[in-house]
Each structure stands twice: as structure tokens, then as C-alpha cells.
């Protein structure tokens, strides 16, 4: 009822059709080393930490050394321990969580994660600390490139995360850890 009324009113009131502009292409030049450095710079500016290691071979030993007790959702057995219907009270106990990131965005230090990366959508938000492993080759220049990668995604949920959860609602003082992760670490391999 309301639907028809609203649509009818729009039809009567809308302006003459103007064309939809064609896609806004990514203007920046692609330079692999440039992208990684830019990503790291911006990530630092938004409060995130970054490690860069030499290739995938070193990743496992690096992770074991630096994040020994972490809950690693790159491993299938962790999914069994935290199934999709896992009670949220249990998720609320999560301290350091490791996720496999899909790609990063150089212009804003964000990483894309969709729900193929965690069994429950709360995981990336409820953990105290978030560690995202990211293949350094998977860094795109800007959001135009980012959406051409993630845009046709058909999962029910996906998110760009750039830095730790933050707020400046008290007198514009920046504080990390408003509701989500207090700390975010990106491990580039």
C-alpha cells in the first residue's frame, strides 16, 4: 500500500532522466612496491600495525612466534570449536583472533573480509585484538579497484576494516577500542 503510494509520488515528481555516468576508473598508476609502502603508511596513520615478512614460507613460523595463543580462523579446526551457532558469550571471550584477509587497499589501509573468512559475523568485531594475514600481492590502489574485486561478492556480509575501532566523541580526543578490536595488526607476506 505504502509502496505503491511512494512509487507513484516519485513518478509524478521526479525530474527528467539524466544519464548514469560511466564507471569512475582508477586514475592512479599501478606500482607494486609503491602500493605496499602506501598501504603501510596509511595503516599506521589510522592506528594499525604492520609486519612485512619474506613470503608465505615464513608465515607459519612468524605467526607461532608472535601470536602463540591466538585463535586462528585460517585453520579448519578452529571453525569446529566456534561453529556458526556458537553462543555470543563464548565469542566475547576471544582475545587475539587471526583471519586471512582477501585484499588490502593502499589509499586507506583497509582490508576486505567477507564471511567466508569467519564462521560467525561477530568474530572480527568482538575480538580484543585482530591479526589479519594478507598476501602483499593482493593490495589494490584505491576503492574503485577494490569494488571491482569485491563488488560481485555474493556472501551475506562483507566488511572493509581500516585500523582499530575508534571514537573521538569525548572532546575530539582520539581513543582506540570503542566497541570493536582495540588493536589491529596486518601481517603482509
Amino acid at each position, binding site marked *: 500500500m505504502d509502496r505503491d503510494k511512494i512509487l507513484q509520488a*516519485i513518478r509524478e*515528481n521526479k525530474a527528467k532522466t539524466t544519464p548514469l555516468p560511466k564507471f569512475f576508473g582508477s586514475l592512479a598508476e599501478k606500482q607494486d612496491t609503491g602500493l605496499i609502502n602506501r598501504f603501510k603508511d596509511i595503516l599506521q596513520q589510522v592506528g594499525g600495525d604492520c609486519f612485512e615478512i619474506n613470503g608465505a614460507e615464513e608465515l607459519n613460523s612468524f605467526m607461532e612466534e608472535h601470536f602463540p595463543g591466538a585463535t586462528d580462523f585460517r585453520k579448519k579446526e578452529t571453525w569446529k570449536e566456534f561453529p556458526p551457532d556458537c553462543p555470543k558469550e563464548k565469542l566475547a571471550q576471544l582475545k587475539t583472533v587471526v583471519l586471512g584477509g582477501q585484499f588490502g*587497499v593502499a589509499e586507506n589501509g583497509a582490508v576486505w573480509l567477507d564471511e567466508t573468512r569467519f564462521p560467525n559475523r561477530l568474530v572480527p568485531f568482538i575480538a580484543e585484538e585482530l591479526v589479519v594475514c594478507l598476501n602483499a600481492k593482493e593490495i589494490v590502489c584505491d576503492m574503485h579497484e577494490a569494488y571491482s574485486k569485491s563488488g560481485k*561478492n555474493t556472501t551475506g556480509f562483507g566488511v572493509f576494516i581500516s585500523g582499530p575501532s575508534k571514537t573521538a566523541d569525548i572532546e575530539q580526543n582520539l581513543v582506540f577500542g570503542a566497541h570493536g578490536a582495540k588493536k589491529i595488526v596486518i601481517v603482509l607476506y
Partner: protein
Amino acid sequence: MTGHAHKAGQFLKNSERAAWHDETLWIVRRKRDKMARAVPEWESLREQASQIKQHTLSELDNYLVQFDGQAQKNGAQVHWAGDAARFNEIVSGIIKKNNATKVVKSKSMLTEECGLNPFLEKQGIEVTDTDLGERIIQFRKEPPSHIVMPAIHLKKEEIGELFHEKLHTEEGNFDPTYLTAAARLHLRQKFLEAEVAITGVNFAVAETGAVVVCTNEGNADMGVHAAPVQIHCVGIEKMIPRMDDLGVFIRLLARSATGQPITTYTSHYMGPKPGGQMHIVIVDNGRSEHLGKENYRNALKCIRCGACMNTCPVYRRSGGHSYGSVIPGPIGSILAPHSHIKNYNDLPFASSLCGSCSDVCPVKIDIHDQLYRWRQDLSEKKRVSPGKRHTMKMAGKILAGSKMYDFSGKMARWGIKNLPRKLVYNRLNVWGKERELPEVPKESFKQWYKRTRQGKGGENGQG
């Protein structure tokens, strides 16, 4: 009459706080400038965003239908609300159907506009605003004073006292880190208890039926993913055609709003969680009517970044509450009179028409032109105060005839110099309320010109 000018006067009484407010927002504006300048294609991005919105509004019915179909295909339930009353009923209906009484809500100006919180509270439903700034003003039973920084009018000492009373934090501890940690604990409990989560929407994508929500705190996601039922409230003007178009708007939004390259979280909700419900409520509430006003249609492009507020010399020096409308500042001053012309007929005058709002607007809304247009429309409709109307009429007559103008100038020069101060700074002299009138020259420009230049030609020899 408690119009903008009066309430701005109240705000300015605390000159120290007013100066702080002004400076703080100016810092945010400068951060925005820095970000905008770091993107070489900034101006073409703005143009692109403006054109996408222009096109979407011209095909809005089709995009809404497409969005509706896609969202349902994704497993969401889509509801349509013609006005605020219908919207409130739909949301409370969903809550009641799920036998829920505990609701968390992330920031949504639309729910403010429709008065959702008081409506739900009357029915015994507990609504907790989860954005830190919003929680603060909810405790204080105040409306937001800024759409992005809702508690920007408050000092940390006031928040410390408030939290001491409400959350039992230490008395006299005003440290923002300490207070934020206390709010985190308090709201974490609310997230875990909530049965329904409500969010606003930044963008709704017709192509995929996705709704996109941007936050820095992560409060929208904590709510949505913890509660079994999620409700997204979206105004019809939030539609965009394609996922690729998101790239343009996401690049513009946070840079314009707070000078960040992107918000911490940019969440794309496409379908319900396993075993959960996802509802989308599409709301008109006057927007389709606004769409028919050719001169003001552009205002519907707004993506609610708040950049026009941060840059506005009037907003910065009068505070968001002085506007009395849900959305304050320049964009609020052109939106509010569409819904309640009588209540907000003074807002288009709460501007210096400097045009800075239009310069920073990421979707290129002609904000200051619309403010100027409103003034003319309101005058024609006799919707401005009689004092202003008669003064303008008189000024019009004086400025139209050169004899009248010369005579009035002479009178004014004589009057300001010779009349008693009390008479010059009378109640009608609004200009002289907070400042001194300029010193009076001995003669007018015309007299000076006649005396010194007539017949001699200008210094550069022109006649």
C-alpha cells in the same frame, strides 16, 4: 519566539565554550582539506558523485523496485513506510512479533526524524543508542547537536560527571580514555543482551540489494551480528545504482566528514545471518514530495557527511542546538523548512551566504544558492517575521531611489553622531546588539567624489 538568533545568543553567552566549539570544528574542516588535497582526482570524484545522485533521483522509482527485488532475493524482508507514523509502527511491529524488549541502535538521523525512540519507549521497549556520542546525549535526554559528532557541544568534565552518575565511574575522573573504556564495558553488556539491532543506512545498492553502513566504533556491527533480528532503516534518497558506484562515495564520505581516508568499518549487509532475520524499512516521510520541488531537489543528494556544518561560520559560532531542527547547519536549514515551514522559517536566514558549504559539499549541492532561494520564497509567501519583512520593504524603497538614498544616508550619519546612544542602539537595531556601529564619515562617497574628482577624470585618466 525562540528562533535561531535567540538560541544562538544563549549559546554565545558562554564565550569560552563558544570559542572552543568554533576552533574544534575548524580543526575538523582543516583535516578535511588536507585529505581532499591528497586526492588529485577529488574534483572529478565530486562531479561523479553529484551526477550519480542526479541520475538516481531521476530514476528513483525504478531503482527502489530493483533494490526491493534484490534484497528479497537475498533473504531480507523489505517494508515500505510512507510517513513517520507508519515507520514507527512497522519497526515496533517487528520488535513485538519477536517478543523482544531490548533493542540496540546505531546512529540513524532518520529514526531521529521520525521520533522512533520515544515511540518505542512508550511501549516499554528499551532502546539503547550505542554510538558513544549518542549514548552520552541519550543519558542527557538531548538531541544530537551534529550529525557526525552528536556530543560536540559537551566538555569532558560534563561527560565525566554524567558517567559518574549513570555508570558509577570515579568522581572527578574526566580522562577520555577512561570514560570510553567504561562506556565500552557498559555497552558490551547491552550488545550481548539485545534481541533486536537497528541501524541507519549510508548507501543502499539497487544492483545487489546491499545496505552499507559506515562507523568508526564498530557499534553497528556489534549490534547487528549479536542480535538475532536486524533492522536497517533507509530513506528513499539513499539509493545508488551499482556496487562500483560505492567506490566514489566511500572515498568522499569519511574524508569530507572527519578527514579520515575511510571509516574504520565499512560494512555491507547483504542477507540475514544463519537463523536470523534481516529487515529493511524504506522510508519516504516527505522526500517524494521534496523531489517535486525543482529548485530544491538537489538537497536530496546529501550523504550526511556534515562537512557543511564544520565549515559554516554561523554553525560553528551558534551550535547545533540553536537550529532546533533534526539536522542542523546549512543542509539542515534547507531541509527543515520543507517539512515544517512555520517552525523553521528563520533557518534560511541563519547563514552569511559565504558559500563555503557549497564548496566543501562532496556531492556538489548548491547549498547557499538554495538558502538564498528559500529567503526569496519565504518573503513572497509572507513567511518571514513582520519586523524583517517591513525592514526589507523599507530598505528596498530607499535603495531604489537615489534621492531617498542620499537623504537617508545623511540622516543616518547625523543620527549616529548626534542622537543619544540609547536611541541609536534601540531594540530594532539588531546589528548594534553585539557590536559597535562603524564610525560615521563626514560625507558620503558621492559627496567626496563630487568634491574631489568631478570633471577632472580619474587618476588613471578615465573620464
